[in-house]
């Protein structure tokens, strides 16, 4: 008993009995005659304050209720040993895959139940920190011994549409565990492709695995290309089937909310099916692809893309001259190509600026400018360090590793027959990633961001590779240019990933802009965001759909101008593969407890709640007993025959 003082409450039992023995002050009810009543009721002595105690079910029930309430107030418990440390960091996965439906409930419901169970298992005096983790971590309650507060926080966790990344959550957990050596990290997750940090934590990690294998298909990619001068668009869509069985799904394509195409796709298990649809009208503003029907995860069954505006970008190729590069760039419909030698670069840029026709894309072939140019840039065979990273030497005959099949920049690009004779050994700068690398991870082709300006590099001389002789080359160039010179209308890229913040350049005349978010489901909303030093940072969207940016200005001519649109999609193959993953890789993040570690913590399981339930049930019984005469009268009134003649002589 935690609170034995509650035994004092037992004094209520004789009080209840006393109330039953005390004569009640009864309400006078006039009747025509007590002639019959006197024969039924034993008259009670008129003036005695007490009466003999008679058996009553009501009294019995009330005594039981009082006894149970006293017992509950004493907080009985059973002692046990907890498998948890005194300090528990409880990470609850709330990534998109946790919205997977199994029957009527999503995994999140199961996860909440497991998390509540963890709180119940806390040792005596244990503290818990509840962390909700999707693409980033959010601490809901910190190091509290208030279990109710922890459970309340857990009950408030809902599955998001965001990709899973436990890096932040483990960083938090690691920091908390570092303050208390007696810590346990408990992760409630489906272990479905969540990103994990490279460095482990100094505390044991337990995994509460939720979820079961469910069939799911997803739209893995969606993009649209405007044909030069054409009346229609080319739409590329990929539907992935990470399930263990072949699936047939109907893909519907909507242009500006109007159905323009639909087709059945049969996707083998574990593979994806790609389609190219050329029936989308070029006048469309945006295109949506939708998988008809239902599957385990709804958030990856819809995807959006913006139809890029028909615009031309002036590109300047700086270098000694490369016919393959020139041809590939010149063939791109959006590119108006200019070429200049290394010496003429500065003058060409200056002239273009003076003519108010700046270059939107710079391509440096074997050349690196002394200053970052401040626009999108492609570096080919960079001989020295630059914004893309540090060049430390050469790699002879590098082997091209199998690239990520979901890498959008390698769409339609087959590098399996490409050979490279010699490449630059480049250590990528922060914000730069390799999309084609050697098996040892040295990037051969990479993309990234330099303070808001996109960049890409091809880390070898095209003359020392057969890439420029293959079909893959113009496709690769097209993808890289699309990446560098973001299609979209205005400042935004065509597509953004859920949860991914966007940092874009905005005309410095504007100090604030309005961001309009239109999720696929539910109501949209507006955000007013500041523009700092010509840059706008848009926080990651929580729902798939569309967003647009428009200006805010006191000048009526500059106010409310739409300067960018983007589609927001999940496009997270790991989240779409809803099959629960291997929890061991998460367990392995933690330290294996030493044999001489802290002794097991005592825990106790309280049993007040079944008692409270029993008391409530008895209360209901008491109500029934107390009101039984009324209910009987009501029943009689409902079923009463005409009262004209009562009695046996009728």
């Amino acid at each position, binding site marked *: 008993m935690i609170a034995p003082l509650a035994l004092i409450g037992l004094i209520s039992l004789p009080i209840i009995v006393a109330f039953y023995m005390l004569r009640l002050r009864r309400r006078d009810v*006039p009747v*025509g*005659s*007590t*002639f019959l009543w006197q024969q039924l009721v034993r008259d009670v002595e008129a003036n005695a304050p007490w009466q003999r105690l008679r058996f009553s079910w009501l009294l019995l029930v009330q005594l039981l209720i009082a006894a149970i309430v006293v017992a509950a107030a004493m907080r009985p418990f059973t002692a046990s040993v907890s498998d948890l440390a005194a300090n528990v960091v409880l990470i609850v996965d709330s990534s998109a895959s946790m919205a997977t439906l199994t029957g009527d409930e999503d995994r999140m419901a199961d996860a909440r139940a497991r998390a509540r169970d963890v709180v119940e298992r806390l040792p005596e005096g244990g503290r818990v920190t509840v962390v909700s983790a999707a693409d980033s971590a959010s601490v809901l309650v910190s190091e509290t011994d208030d279990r109710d507060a922890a459970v309340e926080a857990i009950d408030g966790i809902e599955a998001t549409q965001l990709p899973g990344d436990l890096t932040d959550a483990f960083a938090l957990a690691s920091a908390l565990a570092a303050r208390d050596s007696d810590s346990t990290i408990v992760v409630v997750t489906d272990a479905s492709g969540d990103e994990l940090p490279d460095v482990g934590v100094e505390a044991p990690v337990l995994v509460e695995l939720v979820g079961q294998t469910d069939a799911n298909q997803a739209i893995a990619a969606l993009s649209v290309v405007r044909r030069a001068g054409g009346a229609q668009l080319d739409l590329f869509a990929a539907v992935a089937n990470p399930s263990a069985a072949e699936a047939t799904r109907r893909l519907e394509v909507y242009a500006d909310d109007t159905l323009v195409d639909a087709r059945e796709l049969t996707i083998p298990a574990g593979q994806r099916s790609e389609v190219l649809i050329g029936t989308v009208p070029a006048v469309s503003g945006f295109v949506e692809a939708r998988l008809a029907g239902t599957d385990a995860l709804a958030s990856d069954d819809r995807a959006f893309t913006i139809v890029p505006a028909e615009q031309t970008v002036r590109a300047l190729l700086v270098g000694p001259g490369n016919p393959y590069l020139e041809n590939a760039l010149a063939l791109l419909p959006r590119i108006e190509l200019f070429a200049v030698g290394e010496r003429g670069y500065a003058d060409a840029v200056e002239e273009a600026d003076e003519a108010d026709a700046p270059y939107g894309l710079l391509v440096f072939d074997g050349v690196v400018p002394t200053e970052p140019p401040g626009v999108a840039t492609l570096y080919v065979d960079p001989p020295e360090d630059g914004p893309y990273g540090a060049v430390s030497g050469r790699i002879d005959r590098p082997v091209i590793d199998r690239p990520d099949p979901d890498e959008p920049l390698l769409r339609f690009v087959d590098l399996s027959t490409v050979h490279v004779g010699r490449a630059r050994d480049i250590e990528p700068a922060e914000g730069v990633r390799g999309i084609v690398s050697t098996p040892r991870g040295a990037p051969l082709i990479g993309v990234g961001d330099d303070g808001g300006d996109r960049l890409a590099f091809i880390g070898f001389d095209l003359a020392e590779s057969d890439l420029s002789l293959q079909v893959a080359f113009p496709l690769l160039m097209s993808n890289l240019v699309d990446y560098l010179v973001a299609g979209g209308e205005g400042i935004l890229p065509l597509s953004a990933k859920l949860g991914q913040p966007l940092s874009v350049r905005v005309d410095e005349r504007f100090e604030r802009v309005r961001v309009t978010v239109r999720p696929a489901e539910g109501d949209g909303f507006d955000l007013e965001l500041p523009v700092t030093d010509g840059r706008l940072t848009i926080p990651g969207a929580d729902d798939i759909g569309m967003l647009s940016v428009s200006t805010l200005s006191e000048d009526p001519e500059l106010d409310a101008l739409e300067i960018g649109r983007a589609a927001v999609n999940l496009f997270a193959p790991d989240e779409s593969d809803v099959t629960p993953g291997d929890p061991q890789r998460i367990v392995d993040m933690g330290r294996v407890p030493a044999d001489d570690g802290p002794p097991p913590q005592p825990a106790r399981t309280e049993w007040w709640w079944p008692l409270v339930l029993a008391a409530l049930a008895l209360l209901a019984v008491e109500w029934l007993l107390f009101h039984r005469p009324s209910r*009987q009268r009501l029943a009689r009134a409902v079923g009463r025959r005409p*009262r*004209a*003649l*009562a009695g046996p002589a009728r």
Partner: protein
Amino acid sequence: MTATERAPFFDEAFLRRLEQLELASRRLTAGRMKGERRSVRRGQSVEFADYRTYTSGDDLRQLDWNAYARLERLFVKLFVEEEDVTVHLLVDASRSMDFGTPNKLEAARRAAAALGYLGLASMDRVSVAFLGDGTATPMRPLRGKRRTHELFTFLSQPRDDRLTGLAAAARAYVSRMRGSGPLVLISDLMDPGYLDALRDLAGTRSQLSVLHLLAPDELDPDIAPDARLVDRETGHSVEVSGDDDLVDRYRARLAEWQAEIAAFVSRRGGAYVPVASDLDLADLLFDVLRRRRVVE
């Protein structure tokens, strides 16, 4: 004076309907005053009773030519035979009757008024009395529809009786009782001496009918738990507790009591009619009492 003006209880249409009935008297087979019933034996008496409109076949000797001279309408004079029927109507006026919704005493007054009118319309002698405070308060016997107003006025008078003293009151009435015929007791019988009273009334030569009048609240009481029931008549109280089946037991006792009375009356050749005070009077007369052959 029209019938309606004379009748505070009923309208004229209802009175006309009542005239279709007459009180049954199973013990009398002859010697009845004929009243409106056409018969060769009519007019044997010299006691004038009433007029009625002449119809074809009536004895022309009974025409009232004086009335014809004044009104130019033919009326037949009706006379009373010496073996006429006396209708006895006894209304319990104790406090216990002044209870219920609808009020039992009011219902008893209306029932007595209707039965009395039947008797008057049938040229029977009608004797009405209130029973209360251990005595009977009769009015002088009436005959003929002309006395309807008197009958109704008597029945309408306020009563302030406290106790029934049913046995004493019945005995008092029987001792002064003249003439025989239907005897109708309208009472709730909520009196310890109810059996004595019934015995005395059944012991007369009259045909006893007991209209056992109870209020709906008494037939199916709605008593809250932990109440004190105060007797309207005696002032005595009975405490009831939250006894769940008390009302059920009351209903069973009531049924048993009614059965006892019915058996008692039946053994003495009488009719027992349990009546709820909310029963429509027309239903009582044209259905219930007719089926029990109290009226015909």
